[in-house]
């Protein structure tokens, strides 16, 4: 059953990549997944709306699974944030399906993506907690409040870099050590300011 679900989601994603969100029908998804319409409806009783929401959720999970894989094994909080922001930014820029749907039918994608972003924010915060615990938060700063703040900032920068060039490791290091972490973890240890951009390999 899980296999069927996975297959339908992958097939639907392929359809969305080709035709966009609005033009993807249950029939398209069924044909692409080589299952019957009835099977799609049995797997997604809510029909097309449920299927589209599920595909956005699935693509989001895929995205963050890759991101977690990328930052896994980073040795410090700084390194996690730097690697994560750089990889997430590049992945978004290079994400053809996301970019195309954002160009052509953002109003169809954004509500689902916003629901996802709440879940993502909680996920990022939860992921950061052990790193924050290990590093220690500044005096007067609550651990969960800090994790939530960092998750919000990561989401904001990865989708909209603004003035920052997130392809430049030196700028990312500066961003992470100023706007993101300076208040959260307190003063840097001596000699602590050095970009960790070359650490992934």
């Amino acid at each position, binding site marked *: 059953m899980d296999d069927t679900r996975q297959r339908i989601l992958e097939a639907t994603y392929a359809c969305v990549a080709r035709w966009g969100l609005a033009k993807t029908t249950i029939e398209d998804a069924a044909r692409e997944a080589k299952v019957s319409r009835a099977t799609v409806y049995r797997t997604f009783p809510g029909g097309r709306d449920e299927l589209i929401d599920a595909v956005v959720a699935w693509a989001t999970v895929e995205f963050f699974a890759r991101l977690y894989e990328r930052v896994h094994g980073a040795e410090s909080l700084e390194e996690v944030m730097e690697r994560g922001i750089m990889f997430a930014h590049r992945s978004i820029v290079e994400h053809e399906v996301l970019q195309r749907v954002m160009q052509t039918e953002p109003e169809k994608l954004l509500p689902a993506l916003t629901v996802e972003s709440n879940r993502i924010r909680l996920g990022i915060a939860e992921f950061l907690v052990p790193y924050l615990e290990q590093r220690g938060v500044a005096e007067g700063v609550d651990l969960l409040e800090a994790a939530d703040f960092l998750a919000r900032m990561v989401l*904001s920068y990865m989708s909209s870099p603004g003035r920052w060039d997130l392809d430049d490791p030196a700028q990312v290091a500066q961003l992470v050590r100023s706007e993101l972490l300076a208040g959260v973890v307190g003063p840097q240890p001596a000699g602590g300011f050095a970009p960790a951009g070359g650490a992934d390999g």
Partner: protein
Amino acid sequence: MPLGKTALRVIPGAEAAEVESAEVGVESRSAGHRERIIDATLGCLARHGTAKTTVDDIARASGVSRATVYRVFPGGRDELLAAVVDTEMARLFSALGARLGAAEDLREALVVGIVEASTRIRGHRALAYLVEHEPGLVLGHLAFDESERLLTTASRFTAPFLARWMSPDEAGRVAEWATRIVLSYAIAPSARMDLTDGERAAHLVEAFMLPGISALHASGTTPTIDITPFESEHHPPTSGHTGHTDDTEHTDHTDQGDEP
């Protein structure tokens, strides 16, 4: 005209209803109409959203004829809705400007700016209705490229106020950062960090922003930034501050109390 009153409550200080069209010249009558129609539209949006609001509804709510609406907004409904967005942004920035201009130090500027913007966004009834019932429409302005535009507009407007305490480049970054913070907590409110509450906003500014600004300064490419209060601008915060490009040893500019 209950709708007109509703619209006025959306934006305290809106003065459309006070313009007596019979006693002013043609030009300001048109300006008065413009503002009255925009406020009436806000009232309609707060009750029915964009999908169910027609030019007829707007004309009725603003007490003018359909022809007048089209004379002031020849592009019809679309032009009117765009004008509503522009007007609301201008009103927000104007209120923000007054707050930021009156602030006496950087900490205060950040706190009052964040509280003012957060409070106005939260209290905006038309916006609240649209977020609830037509999320795609609002979110389109808050994601990816559109969000970039909003960040640029907001930080361009607020940065000059912050440049009293830091370099223009720094001020631009900090203004953009503050905008991100306001937007994030406005889109997804946090029970523990209510930024319409002055004390919570002050905590966020003191705990996260001021240390971040110091670090930005210490690591930055721009050598001259001074985040001490405006009054003490003529007294360098630490000896040896001027003329050095390597400022890593002067990271504690937020200590504003112990100057000679």
